[in-house]
């Protein structure tokens, strides 16, 4: 789990994954964890995967582009 | 244990990527990109990576089949050619040569493809010739 969290952080999706073991007897803990996590997610905003519209290719490229093939 | 790496050219499209065919005990077992080939520099697309599959595929057609009453029957080459010629002739007579289209394959040689376009233009009389590598 911490591995996945670190990987997602590297990809720019950090803080959006959380795992917590909560027993059915721990109602108070459940409420606390869910409230905290939703608050955290709300601050982060909507998931960028959903709104991703493809790469934003700028209209003009820097001057180093001089008739050279577009190095992708 | 016999193992060979045979350099070749991918037949799929006009780029002509270099490929290495892995031959284990006389059987084609895998494809690798040819790292030192100037066209693809060690890169291949998914079709090139799976070149060997259609050679060893179980679905490969090894002899002509004729469909009769919804079933395929194995026939000899002469009979198959005769049936196709008869049917083609009948169709051309009834609907004209442009009712026939010819699809050829990129997995054949240049010469074979030339022959097919000649066949469709000169023998059948249509320009409806196309090819899967028209990317």
């Amino acid at each position, binding site marked *: 789990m*911490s*591995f*996945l969290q*670190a*990987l997602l*952080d*590297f*990809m*720019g*999706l*950090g*803080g959006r994954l959380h795992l917590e073991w909560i027993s059915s007897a721990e109602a108070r803990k459940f409420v606390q964890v869910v409230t905290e996590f939703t608050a955290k997610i709300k601050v982060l905003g909507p998931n*960028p*995967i959903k709104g*991703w519209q*493809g*790469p*934003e*290719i*700028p209209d003009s*490229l*820097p001057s*180093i*582009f001089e008739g*050279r*093939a*577009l*190095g*992708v | *244990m016999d*193992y*060979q*790496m045979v*350099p070749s050219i991918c037949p799929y499209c006009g780029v002509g990527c*270099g490929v*290495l065919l*892995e031959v*284990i005990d006389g*059987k*084609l*077992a895998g494809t*690798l*990109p*040819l*790292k*030192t*080939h100037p066209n*693809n520099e*060690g*890169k*291949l*697309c*998914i079709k*090139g*990576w799976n070149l060997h599959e259609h050679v*060893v595929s179980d679905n490969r057609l090894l002899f002509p089949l004729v469909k009769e009453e919804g079933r395929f029957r194995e026939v000899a080459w002469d009979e198959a050619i005769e049936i196709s010629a008869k049917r083609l002739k009948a169709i051309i007579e009834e609907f004209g040569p442009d009712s026939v289209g010819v699809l050829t394959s990129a997995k054949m040689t240049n010469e074979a493809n030339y022959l097919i376009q000649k066949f469709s233009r000169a023998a059948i009389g249509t320009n409806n010739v196309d090819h899967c590598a028209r990317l």
Partner: protein
Amino acid sequence: MNMMHEIVKEWLEQEKIDLFIGYKVVDGHPLPCFFTRENIDDVDNLVESKARYPLEKIAAKVYSTHPEMKIGILARDCNQRALNVLYVWNQLDPEKIETVGINCCPSPAREHADCSYLEREPSGPLKTLIGIENNLKPEQAEVYSQEERFKRWSYEFEKCIKCYGCRNICPVCFCKECSLEHSDLIKKGELPVEIPIFHLVRAVHMAGRCIDCGLCEDACPANIPLRLLYREVNQITARLFDYRAGTDSGQSPFSILGENVTLEPMSL
């Protein structure tokens, strides 16, 4: 005739090995080649080759069908690391493998070498502007903000043409069933691939396995910085589990196969 030739000939003659996997120049192209006792004079044509192929993957293929064979391999450092991983995952028997070590590719430890990674092409201006440059170090890719990181990585992943070349060339990818072909995980026949699922699934599977040979990036037609991504994955593994693939001899922390891994040959 140089020392490498002498050693290989000696090993073949003494029956220390049954076959040697190295390179031979055919029509100007260095190709992987098998050298055997029956054809011992051919050993004189053995070369080091600047182009690298996954020789250990070929060895694993031989081992899966002819487990009794003793195999010699021309090994750079990356081949050696890959061999170690294959030993750990029971794909090869270390008792059956002998290696001839040669000078290797550039790594943090050694800057200069003689293989295809010597000269890495600089990135073009577009890639510098909106993508991730291939020659960055993992730390350097972390200077961007979370939002920017996602945009830049998505640009890279979007280029993927799903050729599966990274998996096919990978010396440590040996699973018979691949998650990347599982229809529940990866949708079939759609491009671009699901961002970032496709690449992250592979990245997760590279954790504790990737030996940083760079063959995947070499084989990538879209020039996606895969080596950088898997490097980061391995750094996370080292940080969290204190496990370094290719140098540690123990089982990977991600191993779920257990101790009894079957060695049935893959169907052709």
